[in-house]
């Protein structure tokens, strides 16, 4: 299948190094301590953060750091063919763990000992890159909840199809079976917190693809900063400062 046509355009009309449109909204779940919706093109994800709160399972309580928990789920209506998936299937357990580990890297857990932070992410619309969108949504929700973080984590994916590196794969490109590199970075500290790859890639091409994904992460980071800035401005004007 041809993923990049001779004019250099992808199936959805993007150029190889172009990202999908980003949209984010903060404070969408009124009961949660922090929440956000994050959209990357047609992928739409909602995240809610509760805590830091009392640890539910006493045996998991730790005296020097907070317990971070994450639950990832996909809405039944999120994909084209409506499928009833069992709740704890392997894929969602794996993604829950990935998101948890990524977020744990940036949360200052030692500041909130003997408490737990719950992150719930649900995919409302799936069109590739749900993992990245979930991490971005969780970051925004954590920032909204006022949980101390060393830096914001942002994530983006990149792939390699038809001999061209492609940024931010959509569902069709994702399911083509080519390599799919998902990267999560701490943009200010310039550290990588997440790196996953499906299938194989040559060493030299991997470098360029990863570089591309990192650039994507930085673009997401600047967008997230904008959203937080707008939110802070709103809070200020509401206080009448």
């Amino acid at each position, binding site marked *: 299948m041809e993923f990049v046509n001779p004019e250099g355009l992808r199936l959805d009309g993007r150029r190889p190094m172009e990202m999908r449109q980003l949209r984010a909204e903060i404070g969408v779940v009124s009961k949660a*301590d*922090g929440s956000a919706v994050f959209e990357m093109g047609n992928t739409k994800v909602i995240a809610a953060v509760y*805590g*830091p*709160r*009392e640890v539910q399972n006493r045996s998991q309580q730790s005296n020097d750091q907070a317990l971070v928990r994450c639950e990832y789920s996909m809405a039944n209506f999120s994909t084209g063919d409506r499928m009833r998936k069992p709740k704890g299937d392997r894929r969602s357990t794996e993604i829950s763990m990935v998101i948890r580990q990524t977020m744990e890297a*940036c949360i*200052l857990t030692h*500041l*909130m*000992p*003997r*408490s737990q932070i719950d992150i719930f992410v649900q995919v409302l619309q799936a069109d590739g890159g749900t993992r990245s969108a979930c991490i971005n949504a969780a970051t925004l929700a954590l*920032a*909204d*909840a*006022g*949980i*101390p*973080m*060393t*830096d*914001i984590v942002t994530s983006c994916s990149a792939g390699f199809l038809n001999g061209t590196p492609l940024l931010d794969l959509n569902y069709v490109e994702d399911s083509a079976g080519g390599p799919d590199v998902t990267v999560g970075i*701490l*943009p*200010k*500290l310039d550290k990588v917190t997440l790196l996953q790859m499906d299938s194989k890639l040559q060493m030299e091409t991997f470098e360029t693809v990863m570089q591309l994904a990192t650039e994507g992460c930085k673009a997401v980071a600047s967008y997230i*900063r904008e959203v*937080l*800035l707008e*939110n*802070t*401005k709103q*809070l*200020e004007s*509401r206080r*009448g400062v």
Partner: protein
Amino acid sequence: MESKSSMPSPSLIDQQVFPGDVVLDMSKITSQTIKLGGGLHQDGDLISVTKAGVMRFSKPNKYWVESSHKQYVPSAGDNVIGVVVDARYSINFYVMYQNFSVDIKCSTLAFLPVLAFEGGTRKSIPKFERGTLLYLRVVKADAGMNPELSCRDASGKAANYGPLKDGLLSSPTCPVLESLGKKIAFEISVGLNGRVWVNSSTPPAVVLVSSTIIQMAQQDESLLHDQLHIV
């Protein structure tokens, strides 16, 4: 947290900051001592921001990040409304349960010592059930400990602290009470942790007052001033 350092770049004060922003580099040290407040974190030589908000500075040397979050952070002297979670106690001081456990909407349960009541003795310990509402004062709120509560004011008097009977608990935020009070007589306890308890002579009045407050809280503040005239 205290550290010696130079002034931060003055351009950052009263500006929006984000997690990860470095506001101070301690390697450029002068002799001045500074104090760091909430939302700032020292990591080696660098002072970085941990919350999204606005950088604030107070003379002579205090720095903090002003941010908004829904979770209540207890601080000594706050008046709060709590719900009794565990009412078991024992006056035998060799075993557990010398405290009632109370939920005050913060990250851990708060403790209310069984003797922290006006004229509290071993014989006068009040009997609470799970779910009892209490109007309380935060006595101690240190990091790494459960906050400690009291039903006495600083001079040892009950001073309106104690159990709240009947009524309705809600958690709004708003300043409409005076206008409401001109029309209806009602009793109210407002906790700094975002909880508000309302009671009145008849159930319809309770519902009216609390639903008005909740509705008001949902309005934008600019609208709120117009609404005050209507009430």
